[in-house]
């Protein structure tokens, strides 16, 4: 994912590259997500989180639409 100055910049960037616009949100929400997504990486007992655990993190920051589903089901 990339950080843009504005929604207009996203629209122009997607149009130039013939990319269908994806999903957007403000960087404040990204900060909330960033603080928890990798918070176990310096633990000696780290293991990769399950899909359900990762989905719960996305849900917790309000990313709950179909775009944010980690599986097809």
């Amino acid at each position, binding site marked *: *994912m*990339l*950080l*843009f*100055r*504005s*929604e207009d*910049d*996203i629209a*122009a*960037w*997607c149009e*130039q590259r013939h*990319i269908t*616009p*994806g*999903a*957007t*949100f*403000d*960087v*404040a*929400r*990204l*900060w909330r*997500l*960033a*603080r928890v*997504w*990798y*918070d176990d*990486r*310096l633990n*000696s*007992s*780290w*293991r*990769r989180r399950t899909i359900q655990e990762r989905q719960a993190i*996305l849900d917790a920051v309000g*990313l709950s639409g*179909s*775009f*944010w*589903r*980690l*599986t*097809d089901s």
Partner: protein
Amino acid sequence: MTQGSLMLDSEIRLWIYQHFVDTGRAPSPVEIAAHFQLTPAEVEHRLRRLQEEAAALVLLPGSSYIWMAEPFSAVPTPFLVRSGGGQWWGNCVWDALAILALIGTDGVVSTACPNSGQALVLSVTKGSLADAQRIVHFAVPAREWWRDIGFT
């Protein structure tokens, strides 16, 4: 595979992360071999297992060099993180912010708007993000994030 072998994989993984934190870069396979008193072939085998079975890191295609240990990137990216005297590269803006969160430090993430080229700086002070007006765009739905980890 023995429990001891898995424990050594875990120790190597953690050491790689601490190396990123302390130096801003990934250790080379030779450095890992020297630290753990392993042969280069043993290190390569363990790095591949950490990639393929544990999903703990990503190797540069066709090599045994580390490309990513998320959120860290071993190669320069458009997402530079600075704090104190240290600097790191994030794989994306999400990872760049996550580096500050993981290290538990204030700092700045420097990048640029891909369309306008305008420099964008995100500052974290006392654990809070300043200037949260910028917009994040995900081109790829979540279920496809790991299909091509270099493009999300």
